């Protein structure tokens, strides 16, 4: 039976970890971070939930199965590559554009960011798949 303190702290910590993971993902192109670390961070957020509660409730919270996350991640990676191909360049060629976002000014978006999102999802799915299965063995 996990401690009450852990159970109480988990929701707050999870929100923080998820925000940090998204932050790490998005800043990755210019500062330390990126899809891999971001994926590990969000996976750790859900791992915390597994430790504090149990596997079924984590699976419910996650909504999407880990193997589907992996597939989604790989598909996003492929998509980011195909965009470059369709746009007349080569597969996985980076394309950039600036989009005005209210409140943030001009924001640069590009296929490498999408690529990183794919890595993020794939890593998250892979780690969670192992941790959830290990936890199921545990219980």
């Amino acid at each position: 039976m996990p401690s009450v303190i852990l159970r109480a702290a988990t929701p707050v910590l999870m929100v923080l970890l998820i925000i940090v993971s998204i932050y790490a993902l998005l800043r990755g192109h210019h500062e330390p971070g990126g899809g891999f670390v971001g994926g590990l961070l969000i996976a750790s957020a859900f791992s915390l939930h597994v430790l504090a509660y149990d596997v079924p409730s984590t699976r419910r919270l996650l909504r999407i199965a880990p193997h589907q996350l992996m597939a989604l991640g790989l598909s996003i990676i492929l998509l980011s590559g195909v965009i470059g191909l369709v746009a007349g360049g080569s597969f996985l060629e980076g394309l950039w554009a600036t989009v005005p976002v209210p409140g943030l000014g001009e924001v640069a978006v590009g296929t490498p960011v999408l690529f990183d999102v794919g890595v993020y999802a794939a890593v998250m799915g892979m780690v969670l798949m192992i941790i959830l299965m290990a936890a199921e063995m545990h219980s």
Partner: protein
Amino acid sequence: MLAWAVLSVFFGALLAPILHRVLGRPAGWLFAALPLGVLVSAAQLVPRLLVEGEAYHVSLPWVPSLGVELAVTLDGLSLVFLALICGIGALIVVYASKYLQSDPRLGRFYAYLLLFVGSMAGLVLADDVIVLFVCWELTSVSSFLLIAWDHERAAARTGALTALLVTGGGGLAMLAGFVLLVLSTGETQISRFAGGAVRDSPLYLPILLLVLAGAFTKSAQMPFSFWLPRAMEAPTPVSAYLHSATMVKAGVYLLARLHPTLGGTREWYLVVTVVGAATMVTGAVLAVTQKDLKRILAYSTVSVLGLLTMLLGIGTRAAISAAVVYLVAHSLYKGALFMTAGTLDHETGTRDVTRLRGLARRMPITATAAVLAAISSAGAPPLLGFLAKELFYEAVLASPSMVAILLVASVLSSALLVVVSVMVAYRPFFGGVPAAPTLPHEAPLSLWLGPSALAASSLVFGLSPQWLGDLPGAAATAILGRPAPLEMKVWHGVTPVLGLSVATLLVGVGLFRVLSGRQERLFDAATRLGAWGPTRVYDAAFAGLLRLAEWQTKRLQTGHLRHYLLVTVLTTVVLVGTPLLRSLPFSLSSSGIELPEIALASVILAAAVMATRSSSRLAVVAALGAIGVSVMLIYVIFSALDLALTQIMVEALTVVIFVLVLHHLPRFVRRSPARVWVPDAIVSVIFGATVTLLILMSSTLYPEPILSEFFVAKGYAEAHGRNIVNVILVDFRAMDTLGEATVLCVAGIGVHALLGTRMRKGA
């Protein structure tokens, strides 16, 4: 246009299973239209080709860095082959739609068959040796899939594997030959090869032998012919198509295509003619000893392939013309005979010639087709096979040397082929009361359309060879590299050649009378003798390979994790250590090591010792965690924040996994005895020393950070990112990252499978 037509066949292959599911039976007719489309688009080019004598040629850049182009050429030679491939291909698709109609996997069968049609068409159109090689191997792969269609039978699997290993191995030899050919000419396009330069090159003999290895294995020449009868395990439409009309002729095509480049020398003449003649005779002898219709036809195909090879070896104008006409005649009649054999099998349930009798009245159309095809096969007038045989004898009589030997071999094998023709077309249909396991009805349209069409064309082209037009002449011209117009007549007076033809038929019918009662005994004798043939060598080599694989698997793949680690570590030490030792003596700089680094190194060492000495798993995990955190701090010192961040996350998640699985692991009952841990310790110390040396060396070898400067300079300018680690991962080396992400997911699936099995077992 032509290239698009060929591509449409490949697309058809891709869509075949879906289309078949959606459209049902009529899909077969649709797929038959694809090869016909290729034929039509080629036919549009014919006037330009035959009248103006101008070969059609297009090329697209494919691998520009290697000078490889997707070059396509259509001359007389490729046109003849293309017509056979696509015409017979379409008939076979229709035939298969009925023959395999009860097979739930018919859609997949169409896919394999169309893949084969496309690769074969690509092969004969390719004007680039690399493109030709790719198509060549594609035909091997697709024929593997087709032969192994009934993959639940061991014989089908063996047959497919034998065909793949023999023809694929020959293909690799041919690739080596092509590489040498490209090296000695500086060209990859076949039409640009200069024959003289190649023949005078010191590499000529190796090139010739390697290319011939490819051609001979594909065309089932001696001693590689054993794969062809084994491939008869394929469904009959496949045998009819691949193993008589097309794939096996790829080798003959290659010989013809490279004749201007490699032909005309003493070596060529000797090797190609002798191997061809030997194959011709052995194939014919083995054919008459068989009982199974398909095997009889398979061996007689081997014989004709030998005959064609022999003619290409002789290489005179007469021989080349004869080869072209014989090629067409054989494809027509052998395709028809195979399909009628398949129909007999389909309708009666056996292919054993000793059990089939007098079925002509019950299957009149099939019988007519079979008889016509057999007359052509026997070389009797007025069918195309007769014209081919006349030209063949003419060429042999006029060959530059070895006339007597070649003539005897030719007459003997032709007479035996007459026996074969009587065996497959007379025996099952005529003579006595109908006999078969189940008495048949006439086959439906889709089953008799193919054989009838082919048999009828044998007749039409035999009666009026002018309908073939300038096609054989154009093909002979392409092979010879100089004009070789060809006149064909059914009747050309009483000549020595006609005498030979008549003698052949008489001897053949006589032989049939002699042999007909002795079928069983001949079969047994041939089976006993055959066990000593090249098959034996192949089987022994194959068994040896399996034993070798078994041995090394037992040695290397023990299933013990520590053993895998040991092998991996020792291999790395040897591979990395050898060049390191060779660069002795080297100077190592130890300057610049500061206090924090020394402190962290000491923590790592202490934790490592603790991890090996502790008797509690939790303590071991903690010690390993300490090592991980210290490594992370080292990354921080060298301002590799990305690595540090990743490292700490991995450490954290590893601890979580450890905690979850810890109590599933067995307890430490006792520590390893000294005879186990001492060698392990030695290996690990050597490994550590090697890696340390390597790292120290790498910093002395590259004093200036070339790569990082490049990425710092290009990172923002070209990839819009200031974090060069991320820029490398998602932009400069994005393909690698894609691969790694895939590996990661595959590893995840592997873990899932492993843990899943354990959980299902209730462990």
